[in-house]
């Protein structure tokens, strides 16, 4: 890729649309057409959830993420623990032990201090649970109307000690696809509390730190090729990214994908496909076929992987595409998300 090719290419749309933040095709267009031309370098161009850096003989993982979820408080969590867990997970799926986080806050004039204190308390609790320290940060306040209550950014660094090289381009034909548990909980929990859509629901966000599940998985010695936490855009988008980066096909089995009855019901009612709904405490792992059994066993022994299952395989056919065998036995495509059904989910 050319370094800093100015002027920047003209993009298809003249203004930023909500869909540019959806984690689907528009997001990836924005990255490809506006962000990468400005910054592109071999580390960034890998487009993994975290950058992997070699510094003085150590491998460090480095990542950042901003949180604009609305509402700020929801069943199962709030923007604070989401911001800690999200960054911890982006490090963990690179095989890193998360160590230190930064936290930055953009506050809207008029936001209640009591709410801010609740967010701080849950961030602290989440950091303790994940074994990380928040060691630097920033606050800014903007006029009323310039942001929506509270936006949070976290960045994190971790140490990579596994000899594995986990990256979205490492999947190979024959590999097995595993998923750590039922999908869609976070997205549906947020939706249930959205203005104008609120419905009675027992579904809580699955927000959780995945570092200890990942540590147990790495300890098996299984030849893991890729791990991803399927947040925005859901399992469908993560699998598409892997299929495209690795130049392979991914074949999922609809019957094998764990899904809670309540989540399924809400999705049926709202016309949403759970494969595209965000998760905040799940991971997808792709590993060598011979190791899938013991990897699955290790996952199911961990509380955050108790409902883990093998959901598909990697193939040579349909390179760059994700397909799914439906409950009736026919095969269809699981496309990249073209339009975001739920803005501001994380």
């Amino acid at each position, binding site marked *: 890729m050319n370094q800093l090719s100015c002027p920047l290419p003209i993009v298809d749309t003249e203004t930023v649309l909500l869909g540019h933040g959806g984690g689907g095709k528009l997001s990836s267009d924005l990255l490809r057409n506006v962000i990468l031309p400005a910054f592109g370098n071999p580390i960034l161009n890998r487009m993994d959830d975290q950058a992997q850096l070699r510094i003085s003989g150590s491998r460090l993982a480095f990542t950042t993420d901003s949180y604009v979820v609305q509402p700020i408080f929801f069943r199962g969590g709030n923007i604070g623990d989401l911001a800690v867990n999200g960054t911890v997970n982006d490090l963990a799926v690179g095989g890193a032990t998360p160590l230190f986080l930064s936290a930055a806050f953009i506050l809207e004039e008029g936001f209640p201090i009591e709410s801010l204190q609740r967010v701080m308390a849950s961030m602290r609790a989440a950091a303790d649970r994940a074994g990380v320290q928040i060691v630097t940060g920033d606050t800014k306040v903007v006029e009323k109307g310039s942001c929506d209550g509270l936006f949070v950014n976290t960045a994190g660094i971790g140490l990579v000690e596994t000899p594995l090289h986990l990256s979205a381009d490492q999947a190979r034909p024959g590999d097995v696809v595993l998923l750590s548990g039922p999908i869609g909980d976070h997205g549906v929990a947020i939706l249930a509390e959205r203005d104008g859509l609120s419905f009675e629901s027992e579904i809580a966000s699955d927000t959780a730190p995945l570092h200890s599940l990942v540590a147990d998985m790495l300890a098996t010695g299984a030849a893991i090729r890729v791990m991803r936490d399927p947040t925005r855009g859901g399992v469908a988008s993560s699998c598409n990214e892997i299929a495209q980066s690795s130049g392979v096909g991914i074949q999922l089995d609809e019957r094998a994908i764990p899904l809670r009855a309540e989540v*399924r019901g809400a999705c049926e009612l709202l016309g949403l496909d759970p494969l595209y709904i965000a998760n905040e405490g799940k991971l997808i792992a792709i590993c060598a076929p011979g190791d899938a059994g013991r990897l699955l066993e290790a996952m199911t022994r961990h509380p955050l992987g108790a409902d883990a299952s093998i959901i598909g395989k990697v193939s040579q056919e349909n390179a760059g595409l994700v397909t799914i065998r439906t409950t*009736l036995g*026919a095969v269809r495509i699981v496309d990249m998300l073209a339009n975001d059904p739920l803005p501001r989910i994380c």
Partner: protein
Amino acid sequence: MKYLDEYRDGDLAQRVLREIERKVTQPWVLMEICGGQTHTIMRYGLDQLLPQSIELVHGPGCPVCVTPASLLDRAIGLAQREDVTLVSYGDMLRVPGTSQDLFSAKARGADVRMVYSPLDALRIARQNPHRKVVFLAVGFETTAPANAMAVYQAHREGLDNFYLLASHVLVPPAIRALIGSDDNRVQGFIAPGHVCTVVGCSDYEDLVRDYKMPIVVGGFEPVDLLQAILTLVTMLEEGRAEFANDYTRSVSYHGNLEAQRILGEVFEVADQPWRGLGEIPMSGLRLREKFAAWDADRVFDLHVAREEAPTECISAQILKGLRKPTDCAAFGSKCSPESPMGAPMVSSEGACSAYYQYRRHELVTLR
């Protein structure tokens, strides 16, 4: 999940499929009317599982697909007014008018809001008495009663800042237009289950009688559709042109009388333009004179050309079942869900979108 899992059961589907295979001795062209049914066919790959001699063509039953672009242009024009809040369902905001969609208008500052029910639109009107709240609604007989109810409620409350900008279409006149056209290929119809849930079955019996063509009311799950196909194929093979209701868990003969009552009170039947099909006499609904004060088309001065601009999109032939989405040269290249050239690629219920989403890996064989 009750009433869903039974109708997605793989073994049951296989049994119905084998029954269809036993019945069929010659090629038949069947049309499912509703976009929701098209979606199920593509999502579950029913066309892959059926005998090759059964061809399913996809009807005009995607409301977004048959909505004239000029309606979107009028909505965008209204949204750009300082005093207007334009409210609609999420999928309508993505539908391109002649030059842009409502999401782009929103990004440029128009007050455009997404709702999940017409009652939310009423609430926004009540909460913002100084703004003119325009609810953009399209749809068949299924969505019309709720929109009628919203206008009726606004009338009852004396809510004078709420307006309906609507394009409501009716299924039976469209079926008449399809069967009556010289190039019709369809030999049997799967009638739209949810439309019949509202309006009942008698219009469809009339169609069977007038055109000697079998019509079966079908549901929206894979086994529902396979069962409707089995009934149609059985009738066709036996030379019978009859009406049958294979979606009895939702559809009663007379339909939802209360919904029909509110429809009749608020709307009257009128000529209606269909994107791709042109104007079909007495195929739409417009607000009665009594409710003219809530009709955005009558209240606002909307200077928008109502003619459709010609395009290379073949959606007209797709909506008539003459061609398949994959027959289009632009399919998947120039035309995709992110940059649709025609409405069937926009709406997730549209036939082109369903082919693109679920089956583009077979493009070579489908073509």
